[in-house]
């Protein structure tokens, strides 16, 4: 494990990803302290609307005169919180499903994987939109919808890993010395599948932030006056091309955070994959 961590940090690209993610976590944790105008989350100042970037407002102000930098900082917290809850919830469903379906080879596992396939057959966004619409739009609904659409990815990943490990020689050897399936699954298969799950989760964080932003942009996620990044981009559309800074900075925030998770995920994948490990030397 420590060897993998060293390898990860030695790779400049994934180290950069880790730095971005840690930075975002820091910003989210101290958002009220870091934001120049923390009250701008909800207050509006119509006299100073749509000001271009300046020393006073580094990212400019929006259509309600709110400081965009402050709102970008404040939006980090909800972006991370949404992504984390969605990924954790998706893991809570997907891992047990994948583990069971991968380990057993009967009609139940067939049914589980068919259900997973069906979920995968509908584009996530459409499914999330449909779910969101059926249960009153809002950020909580969006989170439930995203979790319900993302778990199949974990199920697939864990299924594939479990199938691979099930025929691994060391699992066979454990069965050979009389180990119970529960021991093999929990102490051996699951830990061996974890690197793949971790990679999937990291990438899932980035993916969820993106999708949540799309939902916000389309008006079925976060609702005003929440400092949601996607929502901000949507609000900015009416004020183009004059207020170019208005959509630019929230969008860059999305890009940076998602990039951080993707870089980290990519590095983790290489660190965890022994085949690529060899080729990257």
């Amino acid at each position, binding site marked *: 494990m420590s060897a993998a961590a060293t390898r990860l940090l030695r790779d400049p690209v994934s180290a950069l990803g880790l730095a971005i993610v840690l930075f975002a976590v820091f910003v989210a944790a101290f958002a009220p302290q870091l934001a120049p105008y923390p009250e701008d989350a909800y207050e509006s100042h119509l006299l100073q609307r749509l000001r271009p970037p300046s020393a006073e407002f580094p990212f400019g102000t929006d259509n309600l005169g709110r400081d965009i930098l402050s709102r970008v900082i404040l939006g980090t917290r909800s972006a991370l919180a949404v992504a984390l809850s969605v990924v954790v919830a998706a893991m809570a469903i997907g891992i047990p499903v994948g583990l069971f379906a991968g380990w057993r080879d009967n009609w139940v596992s067939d049914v589980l994987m068919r259900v997973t396939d069906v979920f995968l057959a509908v584009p996530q966004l459409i499914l999330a939109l449909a779910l969101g619409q*059926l249960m*009153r739009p809002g950020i909580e609904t969006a989170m439930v919808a995203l979790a319900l659409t993302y778990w199949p990815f974990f199920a697939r990943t864990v299924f594939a890993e479990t199938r691979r490990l099930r025929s691994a020689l060391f699992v066979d050897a454990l069965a050979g010395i009389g180990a119970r399936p529960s021991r093999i699954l929990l102490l051996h298969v699951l830990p061996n599948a974890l690197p793949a799950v971790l990679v999937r989760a990291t990438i899932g964080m980035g993916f969820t932030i993106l999708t949540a932003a799309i939902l916000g942009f389309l*008006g079925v996620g976060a609702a005003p006056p929440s400092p949601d990044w996607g929502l901000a981009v949507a609000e900015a559309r009416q004020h183009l091309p004059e207020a170019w800074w208005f959509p630019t900075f929230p969008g860059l925030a999305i890009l940076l955070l998602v990039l951080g998770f993707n870089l980290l995920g990519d590095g983790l994948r290489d660190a965890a994959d022994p085949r690529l490990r060899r080729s990257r030397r």
Partner: protein
Amino acid sequence: MARFVIRRILLALPALFGLVVLTFVLSRVVPGDPAATLAGDAATPAQIAEIRAQYGLDRPIWEQAIVHVRQVLTGDFGRSVFSGRPVVEEIAFRLPATLELTFAALLLSTLFGVALGLVAALDHNGPVDHLVRLLSIGGLAIASFWLAIMLQLVFSMDLDWLPLRGRMDVTLGTPPRVTGFLLVDTLLAGRPDMLASALRHMVLPAVTLALPGLATIARFTRSGVLEALQKDYVLYARAAGYGRVRLAAIYVLRNAVTVTVTQIGLLFGALISGAVAVEAVFDWPGLGTYAVQAILSSDYKALLAVTMVVGVVYAVVNVAVDVAQALIDPRVAEEMS
């Protein structure tokens, strides 16, 4: 081969049936009263009851399920709440626009993605490789709706090189609708000016939509080529004196694209998702804008139909992907039978 195709189509049917069931379950299991949701916030109990009766929500659940399945199988999705026209008709009108856009994007991402992935793999750990790696990670990090707006800002509003929105210059009118695919219809109408306009309108949406796919394809092609290059048969081919170009561009690439082709199938879902946002920004009159409209106006039937149509398209694409794979790698078809 024909047997393989038929078999593959038959295998897709359970998944489609599962989708029908899933849409039903989701629409009934979700918290809250769907009738109340459909009726809107200001509805009176009487209105809610009316809607419940109208949608058959007051019947026993199994009866609802049978009605649902029968309606979906016969393509009877009812009328849109929003426009009052049959949902099927509306979708038939909009589907070609979305397909045209997604296929254009797919073409762009496949062509450039495969080329970039190949070049990166051949320059393993070199500067080109790092650049493509960054691009392939960055391409997946950009929110499509934001990229669309930024491109509009630069290329339409600022530079005024490309049209801002829509599928066609309004002053040109529209060609007679034959296929619904504008690129085809303008050609059939013999209107090169219209074709040019349609192409110009397509550039920004297609590029926006293509970027994530390009990133994915470049990434998988790269790793596929790298993996194939390590195989014994490559060493053997080198020892036997294959030419370098042929080795990389044909011999190895064909093995690598089996992975890529699978990704194209999976990508199609992401493309449709992306199309929702991209169509919204570019006012593209396709399924994506229709879906958003349906959501914002709580048009349950329209949304159900969109979900089903997208599921069917997705299934068709994946059957095509499997057939393509069987054509590339003869072992695939034999494993199936």
